[in-house]
């Protein structure tokens, strides 16, 4: 029953998001420029919504959270790097955009081929882009799979479901293009914001009394991890354990050797 509710919610979100995207492009005539770069006419606010939607993926919710949980403060880099990237983009993206518009370019490979007068460089950029998208898509599909596993309470075949979800994504993208994705971002941004507020405020209040309560729990765990003596003890325990195992193996070997040599003696004495 729980799994039906959870899966129904996910189904509603998928249908709603895809519906919004397809609704957004219902009157748009699709050509390559419209499909790949939204006809270069998305506008500042729409582009902002699209970028916000593209930045937050299943990595943000599963990967980043898991990393922060297992590694602690080093995961704070996730807060910084996008901001730093945006500061840099402020300076180098507008010239790229102007060049691309002047030459009616569509992909980053086009840009490199035209800017550096080298079709070979363009081909290389395409190749690098495709190769490095593979692990990225794998990451996203793994995220979908984990989500469906949890939402289905183990009742559904997650590989099949992830395959189905991937098919839906590909179908949606083929129909809607970049403009449809920007429309879908409207819904996605709202959901992400809601989820962040929920995870940052409601969950801590539910389990720790206040958001501050969660942070107060962290140093206790960290103190345990940083306790050198404890780690040393663990290491020693492992050494002892290893020694015991190797000792047992040695004894087994000795016993086996004794048995075989005994058998040999018996055989020899039997022959004699």
């Amino acid at each position, binding site marked *: 029953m729980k799994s039906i509710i959870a899966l129904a919610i996910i189904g509603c979100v998928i249908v709603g998001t895809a519906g919004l995207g397809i609704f957004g492009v219902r009157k748009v005539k699709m050509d390559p420029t419209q499909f790949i770069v939204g006809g270069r006419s998305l506008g500042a606010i729409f582009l902002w919504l699209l970028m916000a939607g593209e930045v937050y993926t299943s990595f943000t919710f599963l990967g980043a959270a898991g990393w922060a949980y297992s590694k602690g*403060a080093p995961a*704070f880099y996730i*807060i*910084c790097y996008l*901001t*730093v990237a*945006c*500061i*840099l983009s*402020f*300076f180098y993206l507008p*010239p790229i955009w*102007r060049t691309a*518009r002047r030459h009616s370019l569509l992909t980053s490979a086009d840009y490199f081929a035209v800017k550096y007068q080298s079709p070979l460089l363009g081909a290389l950029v395409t190749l690098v882009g495709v190769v490095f998208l593979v692990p990225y898509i794998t990451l996203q599909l793994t995220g979908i799979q984990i989500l469906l596993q949890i939402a289905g309470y183990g009742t559904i075949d997650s590989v099949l479901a992830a395959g189905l979800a991937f098919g839906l994504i590909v179908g949606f993208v083929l129909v809607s293009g970049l403009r449809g994705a920007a429309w879908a971002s409207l819904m996605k941004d709202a959901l992400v914001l809601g989820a962040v507020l929920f995870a940052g405020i409601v969950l801590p209040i539910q389990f720790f009394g*206040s*958001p*501050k309560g969660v*942070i*107060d729990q*962290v*140093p206790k765990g960290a103190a345990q991890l940083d306790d050198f003596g404890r780690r040393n003890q663990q290491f020693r325990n492992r050494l002892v354990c290893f020694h015991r195992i190797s000792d047992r193996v040695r004894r087994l070997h000795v016993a086996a050797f004794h048995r075989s040599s005994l058998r040999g003696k018996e055989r020899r004495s039997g022959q004699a």
Partner: protein
Amino acid sequence: MEDRYEKPEEDKNSLASFCIAAIPFLALTIGPPFANRLEPRIFGLPFLLAYLVFWVLATPLFMLVASWIRRPR
């Protein structure tokens, strides 16, 4: 309309805007090792986290000033 897409004329102020944008950039790249402390807590957050959140929230203001310098109305 077409002018909007051409290279803006006001590149003379690009160094100033670059310097303004460099402040949050450096605060987020070189700053964290110097802010790597637990205390004092700010709204219950460890100091480092509060420092990062502050600079992420402050960055749009710096970028607003930077773009304002580049394109005076």
